[in-house]
C-alpha cells in the first residue's frame, strides 16, 4: 500500500526536516536538550545556507533535498 503513497510524497527539504525534529515531538524533557536559543542559531545557519546562490540552484534541481523513505 505504501508504494502508492511514496510516489506521491515530495522530497523533503532540510528545513521541513529540521522544523519537525528540532521543534516538535517530546521536547525539553531530557537531561540534555537543544535549547530554543540554539535552535534559533541553527535556523540562522540554514537561512544563510539557503540564501547562497549555489544552494538555491541545488534546491531547484533537487540535489540538496533529503528524501524520506518511510516504507523502506
Amino acid at each position: 500500500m505504501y508504494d502508492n503513497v511514496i510516489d506521491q510524497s515530495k522530497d523533503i527539504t532540510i528545513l521541513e526536516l529540521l522544523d519537525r525534529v528540532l521543534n516538535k515531538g517530546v521536547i525539553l524533557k531530557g537531561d540534555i536538550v537543544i535549547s530554543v536559543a540554539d535552535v534559533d542559531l541553527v535556523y540562522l545557519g540554514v537561512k544563510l545556507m539557503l540564501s547562497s546562490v549555489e544552494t538555491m540552484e541545488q534546491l531547484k534541481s533537487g540535489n540538496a533535498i533529503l528524501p524520506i523513505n518511510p516504507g523502506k
Partner: protein
Amino acid sequence: MMNSLIYTYCLSNSPPEFSEDDKEQGLKSLRFDDFFVIIKYVSETEFSEENLKKNIGDLKWLEENARDHIRVISMIMEHSTVIPFNFGTIYQSENNLKKFIDDYSDSLTEHLIHLEWKEEWAVKIYCDRKVLNKQIDELSEEAAALEMQIMASSPGKAFLLKRKKTDLIENEMDRLCKNYGQDCFNECRNLSESTRLNNLLPKEFTGREDTMILNATLLVRKDRTIEFISVIRGLKNKYSDHGFDIEITGPWPPFSFISMKEKK
C-alpha cells in the same frame, strides 16, 4: 571512550524488531512497564551538552543525524504507534529516563491511544500570482466589469480606471487565495483527525518562486491515506490552471501532535 549517554528516538507501544544492520548501528529498546523506548548509547564526545551544542552548528552533521532520527522513527512507526522525541533528547542514565516515563506515564498512554494507526502529513499550498493575475478577468466578476468600463472609456478616464484596477486585482487575488486555501483546508479537515496551522514560509526558505498561502499539518488515519492522497490530487488538478500548487509530504511520525503533561 565508552558510550555512556542515552540518545532517545521515540517511545513505542510494542517491542520493535531490529534488523542486523540496526543492531550494528547500536539501536536498542528499553522496556519500562508497557512502554518501549528506542535508544542508542552515544558518546560524550558527540553528545555531551557542550559538544551537542557545537555539533548542531555544523549543518552537515545536523542533517545526517536529523535524517537518521527520522529514518529510525519511521521504521518503528511501520509496525507500532510511536511518540517521537525531538532530536537531541539525551538521558544520562536509564534511571533518569525511567523517571521521565513515570512522571509522564498518563500523558504517554493518552498519546499512544490518540495516535494509534495515524500518521502526520504536511500540506503546503502555493500561489503563482503572475499566473493568477493573467486570468483575473475570468475569475473575478468585479475585475471583468472594470475591464469592460476601461474599454468603453476615453483614454484619460481609462488611465485612471487602470490604476484603480491594479489595486482591485491585488485585493481580488488575495480573496481568491483565501477562498482556495480555505476550500483545501476544509477538505483536509474532513479527511483528518486533527490539524495544525503553521507559519507561512518566505521564498528564501522554500526555494520556490511562488508564494506560500497555506502551511498545515494533519493527523491522518492510516486507512484513509489513499483517500487523502486522491482528494489532494483532485484539488491540485482542479486549481492548477489558476496558478495554485499543492505540495504534500509524509507520512511523518506524529511530531506535530505531541503535547506532554506532567502527572499531578
